[in-house]
C-alpha cells in the first residue's frame, strides 16, 4: 500500500502544512555588504565574530541565529520538541556544539549545502506526522572553515577559476510549528543522489545541477504542476554556471523555467564583490531563505515558492582519491498564508 501522504515517487505533502512562525539569519561582513545585506538580522563586521577561531565563529553564527529565531517567536528552548541542524565541517561540529549550548533534543543532519532544506523537509514531516509541535531547524557555513577543510590553506593563495564559488559565512534558522501565523510548507520532494561524472571541486555548480534539475522535474511529475504554479523557483548554491546548466537540463526534459528561476548563490553577492560564480555553502540557501525570501513572502511580493537546497556530497578524501562529485537536491514548497 502506498503511503497516504506521498505523491508519486519522491514527494510528500502535508495535511496540516507546518507554519514557519519565525526565521533568523546571521552573517559575516562580506554578506552584509552584499545586495541582501539589509535583510539579515545580524551582521558581524569581522569573520572571527568575537571568537578565537573560525570554527568557534561558525558556532557563534549558528547559535545566534537559533536564539534569534526563538526570540522572534517568543519561545524558550523548552518550548521546542526537536532541533534539526547541520553544517559542512567534519562530524558537523558547528551543529553539535550549538546543540550543546541549547538544551533541545537534537538530530544532526548532513546534506552538505542542502542541509537547510533537508532540515525543513524533515522538520515538517515530524510536525505533520504528529511527532512534534515545534521544531527548530537551521544550517551554517563559514568561508574560512570550509576553505581549510575542502580546499587549500588560504595562505597558499591558490588561484580561483571563474567557476569557483565563495562559501557564505552565515547561519539561518527557522521555527516550524503545527499552528501559528506565517508562511507554510506544503510539500517536500526528497532528492536522489546523482553523479554525472563531474570531478572538479572548483566547479561544484556543475556537479550539483543535474541533481537539482532531476528534483525539480520529479516535483512537477509528482504534483502534476508546471512552473506556472510558482512565483519563483530557486536553487541553493548552483552559482551562475550551475544555474545555466540546470536550466538546460530541464529544457531537455521539457520544462522551461528560465523566466522564474534564480539561485541563492547568485542573489547573495554582487558582481563587484569578485566572488566569481557566486555564493555556496549551507549558509547560502539558509540565510537567503530565512532573510530575503521569507521577507518577500511576508511582504506579499511572492505567494508560492519552490526552493531546492543543493548539496555536493564529496569529502576531501574522496576528491584526493579521484572520485567524482555526487550531488543532491531537496525541494520544499513554501506558500504565503
Amino acid at each position, binding site marked *: 500500500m502506498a503511503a497516504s501522504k506521498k505523491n508519486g515517487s519522491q514527494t510528500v505533502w502535508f495535511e496540516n502544512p507546518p507554519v514557519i512562525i519565525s526565521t533568523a539569519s546571521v552573517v559575516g561582513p562580506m554578506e552584509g555588504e552584499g545586495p541582501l545585506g539589509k535583510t539579515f538580522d545580524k551582521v558581524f563586521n569581522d569573520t572571527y565574530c568575537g571568537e578565537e*577561531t573560525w570554527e568557534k565563529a561558525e558556532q557563534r553564527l549558528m547559535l545566534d541565529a537559533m536564539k534569534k529565531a526563538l526570540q522572534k517567536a517568543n519561545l524558550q528552548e523548552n518550548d521546542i520538541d526537536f532541533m534539526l541542524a547541520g553544517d559542512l565541517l567534519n562530524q558537523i561540529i558547528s551543529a553539535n556544539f550549538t546543540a550543546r549550548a541549547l538544551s533541545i533534543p537534537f538530530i544532526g543532519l548532513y546534506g552538505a549545502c542542502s542541509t537547510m532544506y533537508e532540515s525543513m523537509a524533515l522538520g515538517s514531516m515530524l510536525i505533520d506526522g504528529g511527532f512534534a509541535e515545534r521544531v527548530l531547524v537551521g544550517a551554517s557555513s563559514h568561508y*574560512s572553515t570550509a*576553505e581549510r577543510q575542502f580546499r587549500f590553506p588560504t595562505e*597558499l593563495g*591558490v*588561484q580561483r*577559476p571563474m567557476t569557483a564559488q565563495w562559501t557564505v559565512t552565515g547561519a539561518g534558522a527557522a521555527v516550524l510549528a503545527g499552528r501559528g501565523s506565517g508562511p507554510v510548507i506544503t510539500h517536500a520532494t526528497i532528492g536522489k543522489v546523482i553523479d554525472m561524472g563531474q*570531478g572538479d571541486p572548483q*566547479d561544484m555548480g556543475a556537479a550539483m545541477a543535474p541533481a537539482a534539475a532531476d528534483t525539480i522535474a520529479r516535483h512537477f511529475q509528482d504534483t502534476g504542476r508546471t512552473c506556472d504554479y510558482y512565483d519563483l523557483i530557486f536553487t541553493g548554491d548552483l552559482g551562475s554556471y550551475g544555474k545555466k546548466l540546470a536550466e538546460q537540463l530541464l529544457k531537455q526534459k521539457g520544462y522551461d523555467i528560465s523566466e522564474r528561476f534564480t539561485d541563492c548563490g547568485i542573489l547573495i553577492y554582487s558582481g563587484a564583490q569578485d566572488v566569481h560564480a557566486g555564493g555556496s555553502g549551507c549558509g547560502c540557501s539558509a540565510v537567503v531563505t530565512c532573510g530575503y525570501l521569507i521577507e518577500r513572502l511576508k511582504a506579499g511580493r511572492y505567494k508560492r515558492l519552490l526552493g531546492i537546497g543543493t548539496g555536493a556530497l564529496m569529502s576531501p578524501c574522496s576528491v584526493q582519491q579521484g572520485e567524482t562529485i555526487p550531488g543532491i537536491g531537496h525541494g520544499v514548497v513554501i506558500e504565503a498564508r
Partner: protein
Amino acid sequence: MVFFWAFVVGGALCVIGQLLMDLTSYKFTSAHVLVTFVTAGAVISALGLYQPLVKLAGAGATVPLTGFGHLLAQGAINGVKENGILGAFSGGVASAAAGITAAVVFGYLAALAFKPRG
C-alpha cells in the same frame, strides 16, 4: 640590462606555470606545477643548460622554482666531486641549506606576528 633579462626570463617561467594551470585539467594543481618546476630545473641544470640562464638573468632565473631545482642539482654534482657517491645525497640539501633555513626562520617569525590559522 640584467634587470631587463631578469624580468623577461623570470616572467616567462611564471607564464609557463600559469599556462600549465589554465590549459590543463583541474587535476593538474598548483602543487603539481611546483613539483614539475623543481624537477625540470634539476634536469635542465644537470644537462648544463641552466647556468647560462642564471648568468644572463640573475635572480630572474634563481628565484623561480626551477632555480631551486638548479641549486639541488648543482649541489649534488659538487657533492659527488668532493665526497664521492654519498655526496649525491648530501650535496643537494647542503647547497640549498640557506634557502631552507630562511624559509623556516621567516615562517616562524611570521607565525609569531600573525594568526597562522588558515
